């Protein structure tokens, strides 16, 4: 017997498969036309989709609104840039950012998890602001200019290698990496640990009476989210060749929240669809007017009021019903 939550997750997998298929088509068309700009943009959408997944783990599953997830994204981006400028190795950069964001997530988690609800949102916001200002003021990190001149690297995959400078190659590589992170998150959320997170969101007060501390799963979810945000951030300088303090600002955190809420909180895959949609909107509207924020803001408000489950959250139940029919002999 498949329970309802496992079935929801399978519906998300199906939606992910569709997204991956669409991405492959995009990659093929891009390669055929020799496009660089849009493939780079699509890669960026995936990277910010990774950040949005980390927001969804907290907001959609654990019930924690983080307004400061850019802290870990920025940490990953800066650390990756620094590593790559010394050792141009993808794996060194990923290993360093994974470790560093796990440690930072643990420390940050102890700080922010002391409070609940709206105070959690505010403390994550405040902590990210402090970090952003410190980076902004640190000359060794390029201060307001950020770090430029991150070299193009060859990602060694054993049998072959992919250049971060190749639009199609790097797009496909990032796609694969984001799918791996999605799979990791999806796996965790379908374990009793993940169910505990869902229960935390539903009714935190009852958890201790079931024999669990609430701090441990909250902290664990926060660390997992930090690592996913950090690794996503680590990909950014590989794509763009630079990092800037803007990556740590509230705009970045806020965008990730908009992405998740529009795409569908508590679906994981909604984060990726949301990111694709927002990137598309920005570039389409951006070609007519510089005022894309008005449109995105209105769209976002509309989602909050009329579509609280987001786009994928509204589509997914139909797929779940389809899957349920399929299960019956």
């Amino acid at each position: 017997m498949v329970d309802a939550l496992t079935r929801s997750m399978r519906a998300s997998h199906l939606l992910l498969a569709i997204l991956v298929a669409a991405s492959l088509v995009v990659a093929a068309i891009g390669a055929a036309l020799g496009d660089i700009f849009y493939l780079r943009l699509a890669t960026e959408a995936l990277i910010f989709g990774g950040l949005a997944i980390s927001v969804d783990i907290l907001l959609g599953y654990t019930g924690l609104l983080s307004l400061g997830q850019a802290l870990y994204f920025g940490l990953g981006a800066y650390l990756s840039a620094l590593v790559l400028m010394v050792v141009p190795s993808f794996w060194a950069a990923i290993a360093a950012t994974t470790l560093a964001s796990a440690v930072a997530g643990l420390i940050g988690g102890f700080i922010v998890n002391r409070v609940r609800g709206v105070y959690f949102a505010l403390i994550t916001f405040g902590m990210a602001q402090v970090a952003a200002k410190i980076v902004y003021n640190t000359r060794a990190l390029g201060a307001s200019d950020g770090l430029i001149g991150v070299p193009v690297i060859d990602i060694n995959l054993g049998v072959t290698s992919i250049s971060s400078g190749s639009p199609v190659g790097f797009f496909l590589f990032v796609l694969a990496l984001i799918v791996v992170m999605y799979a990791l998150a999806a796996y965790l959320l379908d374990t009793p640990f993940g169910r505990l997170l869902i229960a935390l969101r539903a009714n935190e007060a009852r958890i201790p009476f079931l024999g669990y501390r609430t701090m441990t799963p909250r902290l664990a979810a926060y660390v997992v989210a930090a690592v996913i945000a950090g690794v996503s951030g680590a990909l950014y300088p590989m794509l763009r060749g630079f990092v800037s303090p803007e990556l740590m600002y509230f705009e970045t955190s806020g965008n990730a929240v908009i992405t998740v809420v529009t795409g569908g909180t508590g679906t994981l895959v909604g984060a990726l669809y949301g990111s694709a949609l927002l990137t598309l909107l920005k570039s389409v509207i951006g070609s007519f007017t510089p005022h894309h924020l008005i449109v995105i803001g209105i769209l976002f408000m509309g989602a909050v009021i009329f579509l609280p489950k987001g786009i994928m959250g509204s589509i997914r139940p139909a797929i779940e019903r389809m899957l349920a029919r399929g299960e019956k002999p």
Partner: protein
Amino acid sequence: MSEAVQYFQFVLAPQMLIGLVLGVAVILVALGLTIIFGLLDVINMSHGEFYALGAFFALALAQIGLPFWLLLLLVPLLMLPVGYIVERALIQRVFHSGDRHVRTLLLTFGLGLVMEDSYRLVFGPNPYRPETPITGGVEIFDIFLPSYRLFLIIVGAAIIAAVAFIVYRTRLGAMVRAAAFDRDMAASLGVPVQHVYAGAFAFGVALAGLAGVLLAPIYSVFPTMGRDFILMAFTVVIVGGMGSIAGVVVAGLLLSQIQAIVALYISPVWSDPVVFGIMVVMLMVRPQGLFGRLGHG
């Protein structure tokens, strides 16, 4: 004269005075924020944009020739219906959902984005510097202070006192506090809760608009003006205690002094991280802030 006195007169005191002006300015913005949280339980992420709206209203009306003194009265009055409509048309739609905090926060965040970009659309991205309504300056204890800043301190103090009086000493305030403490109980006692909530939001937003008019001659008018200011206002509200008026005043004065002193002894660029750091520490050790919440004891 001893060196210490000179140091105080020429270095420390002017810096503290700058801090005081900033403190009064931040308190004016934070007052509306704390009232809206205290009464409606809503984190108004668009508060900075309402502050900017007041400044842009003033800018537009000044261009058609209205005097500053009239704007001081007119702009808050204009803000009232705006706030009332925003509360009834938008916030009420998500107010009764299970996760009110998150959804109202997200909604006002989206609203702020729309408002800010609208200002850019209408007024362009560049700053305007309205003429200072009062020119010249005064010397207080041998320290030079532009007259307008002195005016701001006095008027600001008067506004703070008036707001505290309205909330704590009038029948209207009592009604509003009752609605904040127990919505259903207040409704059963004949308090028109719907209007009280919308009215309280309008009042908070009008205060932000008034701050916009008052501060425009000092800090200029530009689309993102709210964004920079609101961080400090949020910090003040959190440290003071979300929803506390006394807390806002105390924390506003305290934090602006800390900011001024840090700017003097360390560097101006470190004043923001230090103040935000205080906010994080405050949230960790005493999330309810220095003072309790409005209407709650």
